[in-house]
């Protein structure tokens, strides 16, 4: 294991009576392949580091996440990892955790709280940068002129907001890139397909590029484009974010042009930080740790596809 943290037997050796630290993990739900890989990564890393992980799933609802988080506080767990669905609305429940001195680590998506001390650290992909990377790749590919259709993620989710902003901040300097339509596909494959169908009907041959906030929606859009009798990847350029296996398969088949990887294997990093937090040396933990994102396109996809597990 790559983890430098205490192995489970280490804890037992140090003090036989001391029980394994309990970590509560609040996940958003199980809405996509990416999320599945993310949950697995956290579970595996917890096991490897010898923690007792209590897993709660918000089923796509913030209320449920807050409920679970609050329950972990009530349970008096040793630490909490939170992958929030949306950025806002966490102040009160995080205050509860703080009152009971339970450290909270924010994973994957950011939270927007008034008081920074409510959580110890944020580890996650730089979703804003992902939006930028997608835009930069696009400008290079198209030479700076294209009509773009955007498939947004779940409204209000931080990746949606950031991928929206990051993309726009880059194309602001390139007047040739025009976003002709944007609509939410909820990060879902079926919704992506449905929205894309309507867009194809409305804008028809005007569409040069589809920018999808995640791979699942892009895969849905590919099906819609094929149904419309066009060749995805050639007639319409598709760029998306996440880098799940399905996206690599699509790229190998030539149907998807580019995916900006957003690495879901965040578990090890999270528990590395958690080790330190529980050991009490929080001083050298940065407030924000970003996971590096890679850009893959049709050419590079073949080389890495076999190493993709998720």
């Amino acid at each position, binding site marked *: 294991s790559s983890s430098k943290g205490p192995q489970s037997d280490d804890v037992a050796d140090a003090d036989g009576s001391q029980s394994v630290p309990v970590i509560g993990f609040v996940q958003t739900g199980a809405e996509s392949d990416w999320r599945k890989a993310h949950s697995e990564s956290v579970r595996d890393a917890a096991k490897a580091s010898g923690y007792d992980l209590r897993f709660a799933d918000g089923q796509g609802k913030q209320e449920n996440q807050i409920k679970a988080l609050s329950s972990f506080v*009530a349970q008096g767990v040793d630490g909490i990892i939170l992958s929030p669905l949306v950025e806002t609305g966490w102040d009160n429940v995080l205050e509860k955790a703080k009152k009971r001195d339970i450290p909270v680590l924010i994973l994957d998506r950011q939270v927007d709280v008034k008081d920074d001390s409510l959580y110890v650290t944020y580890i996650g992909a730089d979703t804003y940068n992902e939006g930028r990377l997608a835009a930069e790749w696009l400008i290079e590919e198209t030479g700076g002129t294209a009509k773009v259709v955007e498939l947004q993620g779940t409204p209000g989710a931080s990746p949606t907001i950031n991928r929206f902003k990051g993309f726009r901040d880059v194309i602001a300097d390139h007047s040739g890139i025009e976003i002709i339509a944007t609509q939410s596909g909820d990060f879902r494959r079926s919704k992506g397909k449905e929205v894309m169908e309507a867009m194809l009907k409305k804008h028809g041959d005007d569409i040069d590029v589809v920018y999808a906030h995640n791979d699942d929606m892009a895969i849905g859009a590919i099906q819609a484009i094929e149904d419309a009798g066009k060749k995805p990847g050639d007639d319409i350029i598709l760029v998306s974010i996440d880098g799940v296996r399905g996206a690599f398969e699509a790229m190998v088949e030539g149907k998807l042009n580019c995916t900006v990887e957003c690495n879901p294997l965040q578990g090890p990093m999270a528990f590395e930080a958690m080790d330190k937090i529980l050991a009490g040396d929080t001083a050298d933990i940065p407030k924000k740790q970003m996971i590096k994102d890679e850009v893959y396109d049709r050419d590079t996809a073949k080389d890495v596809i076999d190493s993709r597990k998720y």
Partner: protein
Amino acid sequence: MNLIPRKLIPLMTTALVLVVLFAVASLKYEGFLSMYVIADLFSENAFLGIIALGMTLVIISGGIDLSVGSVIGFTSIFVATLISEHGINPWLVWLLALAIGTGLGAIMGIMIQSYRLPAFLVTLGGMFFARGMAFFVKPEAVQIDHAVYDWLGDIALPIGGGAELGIAPLIFLTMFVVVMLTSHYSRFGRNLYAIGGDEDSAVLMGLPVARTKILVYTFNGFLSALAGITMTLYMDSGNPINATSLELDAIAVVVIGGTLLTGGVGYVSGTMLGFLIYATIYQITYFASFRSSLATIAIGVLLLGFIILQKSLVRK
């Protein structure tokens, strides 16, 4: 002939189930029997509790209201947007939100009573309408930063063991007392029982049936908006997606609490018990790290068990 009146048997059974559930969980999970957990039961589901109270009255009157979850979502984003993005005073915004929720309830009540449309259909329409309007106001979550919210957020009633109740559970408990008094000690409340028991008879007995029926939906609209406001207090933000399908949870809570969907029979205190059972089950799933799918299956099985129990009691 018995110590307990027959009417109260379902209520007693529900209470017994709650006690057993809580006792078993306390034995099995360390830290379950703590004031923190008990406070959590009330705090984390306060908005569900509030709409379950209103739903109890509606169901006692023989109706149903599917719009409540959406009205919560609408209210939460409406309040958040007006406060944060338009800088309007929270008290004024709340008044407005309560007025809108109440108005929507009244309109649905009138459609049900005056135009004889099924409550199921009308409130289903209300559900779609309110949810859509919520997204129309703002399709994403909005943070609320306001002194009033900070001040209310600091309210905490210590209940011992280091645990405390915030503003949301306090609103819920207050409404519990109000609704319980309404159902038992007001003419309006008693008329609900009569209408649910036999609407035709209630008309012939000279009860104000039309007014009462419209009023119960109106009141429920008010409570839904109040639950929405409570939600903004609880989350310091509003989100149009909040409380999706919460109406079904509320119906489940009411039925578990012993209120018959046919109307005319039920207790608000039973709903409180049903609410606590529901909250305890979710609490157990977090303690046991159960999959969320098992929690929903458990709620379904429990619902089935209670209904069968009620049926067998009524048949006797």
